[in-house]
């Protein structure tokens, strides 16, 4: 809410003018019964047709005036609502960019996308409606009461009693049903989840003949939804009939009092009709108001979800120092590093210590879930260590600005992800000012030249979202090229050659060894063949450093490494 107000502020004028013009329109509407009363009391009573004509023309003029006010109000409301929500969207998107991996893990992409899209749309609609209508209904309701007072105080007292009663009814029904509707939504989500899961797991479900159980589970969920819907449906269906009954009882009261007042000459017949008309106006407004409150409650729920996200601080404070130049200090130094994911049980890495000199190639090998990816993620400071310290060029990564640190690192993630656009645009992610020659050089090194040359338009060939118009192996090579374009001083390849065949993998390895700027290279792999040539191999086992050294040394000294080797090369293969 607070955030929404902040983004509404630039549109303050529009946000004030919209309800103001709505107010003018409502005021004109409120005058109509009075004019009709004049028509009856003066025009009809005296048979003055020209008076009737003038009054009715005035009514028509009010109609036109109301129309003009309302058009202006709609425009300002739309301008303020779309403007404020565009600002909010921009702020949220910007904020999401500052979240660290830690938060992205916990929140999950689909939550973030929902906040950015459907929640935002709800907020925009809700804001637009509020600006237009939120003030209108109370104005009409209380205006009608005020008008009633100008006609006759005693009759108007009925308004003064009935209006609070009506508001109590509307809010009582709203307050009880809104949380119930939220429950209905939650039950519907459970139904959706079950159907989605069933669709995606159809092969496994059928393989294990689980169809009947799935059906029973689904029926249970639809039954729960049905029960919740019926309960809230019954409650909310009370609103309109009760309001209707109360208003009509009020009309009875007005006519009863009115009869006495007309008889005593305190008010005229026309004024009595005006009082009756005011009560009818209130009925119409309240029904609109109730449905307005419903959609505003929804929008408020969305706005508060957006607000929570905006207030979520990035779990990682940016450092202040620029990355120091390579000196005598090792390129990367891990000192007694332990790491644990937030809320995730045991340590993923424990007590890792290693110093990597500049220009070395380091292989990292270990079992599934042994912490290989976590280790390199600490170097680029995607996560902060739980204990110990990671240094790059001698400086603690937490002290460095993220931009300077990551600017020196080229990372090729496990999941080869490209973005919609052209091949060139994707490669320029590495370095925005790279020229074509440099791009081709990187492609050559990544063994990706042929991929680009095969495509029509070469570097300008289209990449569909997620890079789905490329095969897994092609995507891997392009993401390697993207990292190379940057000429990083630290290059990290996270199992990023897994989809390459043997020959390509070997060629890639050779090319990486001969990079002219001699970066420090980290290669994560499951295959011993891909890392055996490294200057140093780190062997991880359940988050601990089980061995460190060259291939030869490790074969002699490290049992885990020997076992991995054994699983990949049987004796007879080694000539």
């Amino acid at each position, binding site marked *: 809410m607070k955030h929404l107000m902040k983004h509404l502020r630039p549109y303050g004028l529009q946000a004030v003018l919209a309800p103001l013009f709505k107010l003018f329109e409502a005021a004109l509407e409120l005058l109509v019964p009075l004019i009709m009363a004049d028509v*009856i009391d003066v*025009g*009809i009573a005296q048979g003055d*047709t020209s008076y009737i*004509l003038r*009054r*009715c*023309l005035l*009514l028509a003029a009010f109609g036109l005036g109301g*129309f003009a006010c*309302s*058009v202006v109000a709609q425009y300002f409301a*739309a301008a303020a609502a779309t403007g404020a929500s565009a600002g909010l969207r921009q702020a949220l998107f910007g904020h*999401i*960019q500052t979240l660290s991996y830690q938060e992205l893990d916990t929140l999950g*992409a*689909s939550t973030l996308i929902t906040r950015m899209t459907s929640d935002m749309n709800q907020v*925009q609609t809700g804001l*637009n409606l509020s600006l*237009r209508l939120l003030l209108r209904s109370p104005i009409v309701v209380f205006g009608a009461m005020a008008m009633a007072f100008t006609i006759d105080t005693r009759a108007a007292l009925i308004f003064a009693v009935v209006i609070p009663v009506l508001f109590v009814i509307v809010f009582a029904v709203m307050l009880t049903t809104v949380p119930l509707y939220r429950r209905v939504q939650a039950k519907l989500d459970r*139904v*959706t989840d079950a*159907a989605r*899961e*069933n*669709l995606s797991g*159809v*092969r*496994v*479900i*059928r*393989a*294990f*003949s689980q169809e009947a*159980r799935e059906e029973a589970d*689904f029926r249970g969920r639809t039954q729960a939804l049905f029960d919740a819907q*019926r309960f809230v449906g019954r409650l909310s*269906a009370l609103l*309109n*009939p009760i309001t*209707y009954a109360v208003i*009509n009882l009020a009309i009875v009261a007005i*006519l009863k009092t009115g009869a006495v007042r*007309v008889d005593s000459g305190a008010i*005229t017949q026309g004024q009595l009709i005006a009082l009756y*008309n005011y009560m009818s106006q209130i009925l119409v407004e309240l029904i609109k108001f109730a449905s307005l409150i419903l959609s505003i409650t929804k929008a408020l729920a969305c706005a508060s979800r957006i607000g929570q996200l905006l207030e979520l601080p990035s779990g990682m404070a940016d450092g202040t120092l620029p990355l120091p130049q390579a000196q005598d200090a090792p390129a990367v130094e891990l000192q007694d590093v332990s790491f644990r994911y937030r*809320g995730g049980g*045991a340590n993923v890495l424990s007590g890792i210590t290693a110093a990597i000199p500049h220009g070395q190639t380091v292989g990292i090998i270990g079992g*599934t*879930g*042994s912490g290989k990816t976590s280790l390199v993620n600490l170097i680029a400071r995607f996560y902060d260590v739980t204990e110990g310290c990671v240094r790059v060029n001698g400086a603690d990564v937490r002290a460095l600005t*993220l931009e300077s640190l*990551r600017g020196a690192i080229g990372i090729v993630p496990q999941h080869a992800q490209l*973005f*919609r656009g052209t091949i060139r645009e994707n490669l320029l992610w590495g370095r925005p000012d790279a020229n074509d020659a440099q791009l081709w050089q990187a492609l050559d090194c990544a063994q990706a030249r042929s991929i680009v040359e095969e495509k029509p338009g070469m570097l300008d060939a289209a990449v569909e*979202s997620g890079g789905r118009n490329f095969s897994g192996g092609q995507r891997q090579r392009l993401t390697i090229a993207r990292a190379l374009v940057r000429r990083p001083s630290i290059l990290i390849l996270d199992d990023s050659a897994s989809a390459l065949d043997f020959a390509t993998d070997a060629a890639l390895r050779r090319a990486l060894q001969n990079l002219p700027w001699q970066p420090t290279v980290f290669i994560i792999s*499951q295959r011993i*063949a891909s890392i*055996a040539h490294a200057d140093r191999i780190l062997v991880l086992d359940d988050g601990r450093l089980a061995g460190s050294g060259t291939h030869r040394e490790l074969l002699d000294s490290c049992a885990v490494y020997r076992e991995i080797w054994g699983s990949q090369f*049987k004796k007879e293969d080694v000539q």
Partner: protein
Amino acid sequence: MNSSSKLLRRVLHELRAHLPALACSAVLAALSVAGSLYIPILVGRAIDRIVSPGNVSFAEVAQLLARIALTAGLTAAVQWLMAAVHNRVCFSVTRTLRDRAFAHLQHLPLRYLDAHPGGDTLSRIISDVDQFADGLLMSFTQLFTGVLTIFGTLAFMLSIDWRITLVVVVLTPLSLLVARFIAGRTYSLFRTQSEVRGEQTAFVDEMIGGARVVQAFSRERHVTEQFSQINARLRRASLRATFFSSLTNPSTRLIYNMIYAFVGFTGALSAVSGAITVGSLSCILSYANQYAKPFNEITGVITELQNALACAGRVFELLDAPCETPDAPDAQALASANGHVQMQSVSFRYRPDRPLIEDLQLDALPGQRIAIVGPTGCGKTTLINLLMRFYDVDSGAILIDGTDSRRLTRGSLRASFGMVLQDTWLKHASVRDNIRLSRPEASDSEVVQAARAAHADAFIRRLPEGYDTVISDLGGSLSAGQRQLLCIARVMLCLPPMLILDEATSSIDTRTELRIQQAFDRMMQGRTSFVVAHRLSTIREADMILVMKDGHIIEQGRHEELLAKNGFYAALYHSQFAPDAP
């Protein structure tokens, strides 16, 4: 037209169980309309008896007021009852349709499910059903009450003064024209808005999905800048669509106000001439409002109805999609299979115009390990689809222990195969329940045993709540390898006589794989297994290697035999698997 009337008949047929309730709600609607139209008349009469000082007949007024109160009370009760009946029908139609659609889904052939995107099927079950029930039933009631109100008002007005009625009847449709005019103009604006919105959603989807890469390359600022360009376009499009569409209400209100003024004028003139009373004028004025309102609602209702019908059509399409051929009435249950699998001249195509598997022959003896290798798209996975009868062969036959698999019940056939796929699927449930999926009656200690055999026990224990940790899609706390281990544990738990492993260990490190392999070896004593794999060790020790290319088995034999042949396998082996042992 014909198809939509057919659709309508189908809808009525589907709703037949609820027809009494619908009829009841129609009667209630009629009563409620009558009640709400009757009250202004009573009020008008009362006003005619409250004329001026000394000219008030209290007794008659009191009587009329009692009638108003009674009518209002009854009308309110009827309204509530109507809503309750309507809700009941609507919600139970929704539930029944969903249950049926879901049950149907369990019997749809994989051919259908593979060909239709999951999101599309999902939206048929969820949002289409909602829109159908909501839209259709809501519209029925609204349409019905709307039409009743129009005719009722018309009748009442005619009974009071035919000239004024004529004015109202002639002028009101104007508002319809105006509403339609605006809707027509704003349609393209809305389309632009939803196009830009779609573009923005796609961008957000991509950049948030790829947030890690964005950060790794410090592209946050650039991406935010790109977003702001789309955002500005969306703001402009939104403003135009919102503003122009929100002109409908003021415009129609303008017309009502004009009508009101006009009716007021002619009515007042009639009153002056004594043709009608003041009370009747008041009544006619309130009718003029009531009469106009349903017209606007009806335009909305008609689009809603069309939309609801379209949704109904999509739901019926799903419900009408033919099921897989049911098990033959005399189908046998396959109990404790030996695992002798034969394929006799099997041919199969996903699409009639694209030949895939042609005249395939295979004889796998009980206990043999069959490795399937070949380039992508050669039909490896198809073979598994056929073995599991996810798809039926076009011609030829697959025999299990000498019986045509189509003469076996699907349940028993599939229960005889333990299947682990590369694409791991886990339920949103605890780890324990996920493993237990293969044998729901298994005890906790059996689950743990299976997890140990799959080398999953150690990492499961490290999860925040061990075996009770709920696996969620979003958290992504499990690595691909860990997910595969859970799927393997599942098969370890049920120990079927035959195994299908489709790249089942592709994300697991070689050391763990080796251990799992040993566990499989122990459990595969006498079990026939089909293994699609890309790793040398797995393939080399197979009793038979099937080399597939373009749907044919082009080579068949043991590793050494095939290498000696120096054919396709040898070439594949040298390019893909040859180790450069250091």
